[in-house]
């Protein structure tokens, strides 16, 4: 089967690969490029566990035709930490016990990152709206909402760039 070449930026570094016809971005990230941080949950746009940022906006990698991100910037949770230093959101999730089974966490983190980039000091309602496309079956959401609000209160510089 003919493959299509795709080149894009993954967490700030150039990524180039060949994709099968109809392959979604999630398969390409996980199997093609070895970034296992975005998770496959439902494959139909309900759960949000595959959320990545494309040109800064949260999207569902499982519902994105891989070749449509040609030339665009893709960010995943795999690129959040700066070497050994975790992102403020990651720290807040750990400190606030916002992950239980952890399967929704990468998607939650990406939705939260997009929120804090556009709205550095969100209200509780804005946080709830921002993660409304991400399902969590463990926590009851409360620790996640609190962790995102805590990260927003932490010093700006530790939120990583760009902010």
């Amino acid at each position, binding site marked *: *089967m003919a493959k*299509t070449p795709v080149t894009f930026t993954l967490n700030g570094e150039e990524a180039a690969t060949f994709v099968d*016809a*109809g392959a*979604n971005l999630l398969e390409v990230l996980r199997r093609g490029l070895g970034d296992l941080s975005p998770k496959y949950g439902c*494959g*139909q*746009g309900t759960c*949000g566990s595959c*959320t990545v940022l494309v040109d800064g*906006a*949260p*999207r*569902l990698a*499982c*519902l*994105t*035709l891989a*070749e*449509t991100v040609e030339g665009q910037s893709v960010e995943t949770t795999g690129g959040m930490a700066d070497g050994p230093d975790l992102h403020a959101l990651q720290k807040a999730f750990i400190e606030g016990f916002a992950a239980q089974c952890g399967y929704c966490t990468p998607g939650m983190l990406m*939705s939260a990152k*997009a929120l804090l980039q556009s709205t550095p000091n969100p209200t509780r309602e804005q946080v*709830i*709206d*921002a993660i*409304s*496309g*991400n399902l969590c079956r463990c926590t009851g959401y409360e620790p996640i909402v609190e962790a995102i609000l805590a990260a927003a209160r932490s010093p700006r510089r530790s939120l990583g760039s760009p902010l």
Partner: protein
Amino acid sequence: MLEVVTTATLAEAAAAMGPGARFLGGGTLVMRAANEGDPTLRRIVRSTERLDRIQTEGNRIRIGAGVTMSGLLAARETAFLAPAARAVGGPQVRNQATVGGNLHAPHPYGDLTVALLALDGIVHLSNGQDMALEPYLAARAHPPGLVAAVSVTQPMGEAFRFRKVSRIKPKGVSVLSMAAHLSRSAGRLSGVRIAYGAMGPAPVRAAAVERALEGADLSATGIASALAQATVGLEPPDDALASAWYRREVAPVHLRRLLLGEP
């Protein structure tokens, strides 16, 4: 075996359509089918032509088929559509789902289309043909061309109302959705358009309600006969969210709240 055809223009994409082909907008419907291994999907057609313009044309607004729900929410010209655009999916879906794709969203999806239908939507096709939204939806399984844009009447002031009823907030699918364009002439309702979502296989107009509101005033007594005919001529579906019976029972309640501006 699945193939992807990418074209530079929408007109070329239209030529690549055929049996087993689906046009890719934001991907929320077509990629879902691809992920499920839908055997009826054999070709994904997409175009790199940008279809994301929003233009004011007199008292109408023309919205490119590729404008996303987030695009509608961000543009000042389409602020009146915000309640309907916000009712679609979660943030990620709103960043992907397009106006053109929403016209083809199966039950219980397609909340935006309900609003477009109440606002006298006209579909502008890739072949230059224009088609009223209502007949387009009735024949949407076999459209005569690809959607290039949709234009709607720009409502005055509070004349446009939208309501989505779902069991989960802020993100849940429709038990039903309703839109009303309450146009007036000499203080009385005239040429009112009412549209429902999740009350049939595709968004529909409530013709009996529209007729009953002609010349009426927006008061509890003025709308009584319209409420009595809230589901006349409609066949609401049974699904996992609500039964047809339940939809018939609650439709007049939500129609009253919509018309009287009740919470």
